[in-house]
């Protein structure tokens, strides 16, 4: 049944391709519109806990530190 209904997946797949690729094309050509959201360099990007320059991992959530 799936084999015969494969074409019905094409439209959603096309929408996904457009939506996924769109921002990347805009980024590539420098027309991304608004600037990225500002982030505090001393804050874990995952959980918002305070991290120091010596932390390899966030002391709160355990992810590698990304500020």
């Amino acid at each position: 049944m799936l084999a015969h209904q494969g074409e019905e997946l094409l439209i959603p797949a096309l929408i996904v391709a457009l939506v996924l690729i769109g921002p990347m094309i805009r980024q590539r050509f420098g027309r991304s519109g608004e600037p990225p959201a500002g982030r505090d360099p001393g804050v874990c990007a995952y959980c918002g806990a305070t991290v120091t320059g010596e932390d390899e991992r966030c002391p709160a959530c355990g992810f590698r530190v990304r500020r």
Partner: protein
Amino acid sequence: MTVFGILAHGLGGRVDLPVPRWMFVFGAGTALVVSFVALASLWREPRFEGRPERRGHASALQRILTNRALEWTVRMLSLGSFVVVTIASFLPLSPTETIGPVVVFIWFWVGLAFAQAFLGNLWGTLSPFDTLGRLLGFDESERVPTRAYPKAWGTWPAAILLFGFVWLELADPFADRPGTLGYAIAGYTLITLGGMAVYGRRAWVEHAEAFAVYLGLFTRMARLTRDPDGFVVGRPPLSGLARLEPKPGRLALILVALGSTTFDGFSRSSLWSDWTGALAGLPETLAETAGLLGTILLVAGLYALAMLAAGQITGEGWHVPAVRFAHSLVPIAFAYVVAHYFSFLLIEGQIGIARLSDPFDRGWNLFGTADRLVNLTLLSATTIWYAQVVAIVAGHIGGVILAHDRAIAIYPPGVALRTQYALLAVMIVFTATGLLILSGG
């Protein structure tokens, strides 16, 4: 044939629908888009993120719900049932002849997922592993753990153990050796108690006890929860997911849950039968293992692509938004459990009522239910299909709501909505694929 396949031998029937099934697929996709537009225009302030926890007040009902004697009575009954199920699972009989596989794969795996999503954390009290950990003195309040649980592990042990369980269930590598389930339960119990002994009961249950972590996701959807004093309090449905703390391995566990259910549906389609129908033994197990892993990776890849697109807008790469929006996949994972297994629970789950009276196939009739037959007319195929459509659409709309609520809480207004476009597109694909798989079953 997998354990699920053997247990699910009675399902089927003719579906009478007013319109072709593919119209349901397009209708479901449209419902998601309409929900997204409605949220963008009407849901402008976060309602789940940062919501203060409600506190309960002492009352007669709360005294019953927090009664220690009642709690331990339930714990000991559950532990006793666990022993019976484990012994039955060692018996070299077919999955429908003892109480073991029915309780493990239907009542526990499916039924408890339903119960957790509507009633809250029942597994916290019913878990025999948790009870054994307390009885053996592995709680942190009784003795200092040998080692501190490594934060870097997060819930990776739970994700790996959950994969092991779904592999046992769906690839069924020991199909020709009835009784293997008993060894699996014993092995898991040893790993769990060993982990509790080294790292402490609470730490292990919170991070590594696969069923506590998996079922704990659905608990966050429930309207009922407990406050810090243990009182049962209400909250809006789904709102508990906004409090799901980010941890390494959490996303992996959610993707294992989502991908494995998807593969279970796909493995019952005619397409999968065409590919693997001629295989048996080890080649069949290898094909099912590859199919299971491939489906999980495919679901993960689609989600990662959506998050890559979101990360392009916020300048964060793909991983940070992938972790931030992981909670939005939980209602979808639950919707797949409902869509794929609710008829299984209500129909094949009846086998367990007969097996209660004769758990070891010894000819007993302890409760007078040993001769009870399965009522196959309880649900029609048409009813099952409508329930599947409603579950899939509701689950994805739940996911869209959670992602939207978080996006507007953490990103500036102009950015928040744009981060959601790709996720919406992927959710439409999940919806369409989910319904197509179910309609091909």
